[in-house]
């Protein structure tokens, strides 16, 4: 008996011999229907053979079809061990919570609150709009010429030193500028001319800020020569290069010049008797 029992003695093998590439432990030759080992001290309790508490096939179980897998098809009953806790320290929850009366805090008239809210929103809009506007305009002002550059680009002429009926030529931004102190007869001549029939129709009032002072760029509008003063058929300027005649208001009257002599931006400083060109 003992020798037979020794041959039947079961071995304790490691259940997992190797692992499949999928990570599932592989247990070849695992006998899931193995009998429980014979127990000589069992005194007859529990029959030798398949376990009595093995779940039936329809309820799931262990299979070796794709590796070792276990499947349970039944919904396990939840653990129900509920009982009322009769002793605890948390506050008692009342069925109907008591809501306080907010009546004294409510606004009597909602109109003023509404108007104030909209007013605050609008004020915010006003402030942000002016901030946006001023930042844009400040940024654009950084691109403008600075005051020192503008000051260099200006020329100041003392008008008291120019007698009536005389021309003065000064240099402004690299170009000659004619300044003529016109006599009264010259003003009348310039104003009485029928300027609408001219090549570049411009009245004398448009070209001068003060009738006795004529300020023009001394560059012929034809090809850029410098005209000669007090010459030409009209008593004004004459360009020696191609024979353009300008009248006493600097308007092109004869010859190839297409436009009148250009009038630069200029201002009179009456207090100091000066002319600022630029």
């Amino acid at each position, binding site marked *: 008996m003992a020798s037979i029992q020794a041959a039947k003695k079961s071995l304790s093998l490691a259940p997992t011999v190797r692992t499949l590439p999928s990570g599932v432990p592989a247990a070849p030759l695992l006998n899931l229907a193995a009998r429980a080992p014979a127990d000589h001290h069992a005194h007859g309790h529990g029959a030798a053979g398949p376990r009595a508490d093995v779940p039936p096939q329809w309820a799931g179980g262990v299979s070796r079809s794709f590796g070792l897998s276990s499947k349970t098809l039944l919904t396990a009953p939840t653990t129900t061990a509920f009982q009322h806790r009769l002793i605890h320290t948390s506050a008692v929850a009342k069925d109907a919570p008591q809501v306080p009366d907010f009546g004294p805090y409510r606004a009597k*008239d909602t109109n003023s609150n509404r*108007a*104030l809210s*909209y007013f605050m929103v*609008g004020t915010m*809009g*006003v402030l942000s*709009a*002016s901030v946006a506007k001023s930042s844009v305009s400040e940024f654009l002002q950084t691109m403008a010429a600075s005051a020192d550059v503008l000051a260099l680009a200006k020329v100041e002429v003392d008008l008291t030193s120019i007698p009536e009926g005389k021309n003065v030529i000064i240099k402004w931004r690299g170009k000659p500028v004619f300044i003529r102190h016109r006599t009264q007869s010259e003003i009348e001549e310039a104003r009485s001319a029928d300027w609408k029939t001219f090549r570049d129709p411009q009245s004398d009032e448009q070209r001068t800020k003060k009738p006795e002072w004529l300020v023009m760029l001394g560059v012929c509008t034809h090809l850029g020569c410098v005209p000669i003063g007090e010459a030409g058929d009209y008593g004004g300027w004459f360009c020696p290069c191609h024979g353009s005649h300008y009248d006493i208001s600097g308007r092109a009257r004869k010859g190839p010049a297409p436009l009148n002599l250009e009038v630069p931006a200029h201002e009179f400083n009456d207090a100091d008797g000066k002319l600022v060109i630029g």
Partner: protein
Amino acid sequence: MPLSATIYNTIFKRNSIYVATVFSAAFAFGISFDAGVQSFWDKWNQGKQWKDIRDKYVQDAEE
């Protein structure tokens, strides 16, 4: 009708009017803010700026 309801009905009720009011108010605010800061500056620096002391020097030069 209280004043607040009147203001609400005239300005805030219609969004186009609201936005137009905001922008025109921003325009007016910008101008008035600049003018206010300018006048404050002039008051604070009274007697120090060229336009305040110009009379002394220009008269001297002419005499």
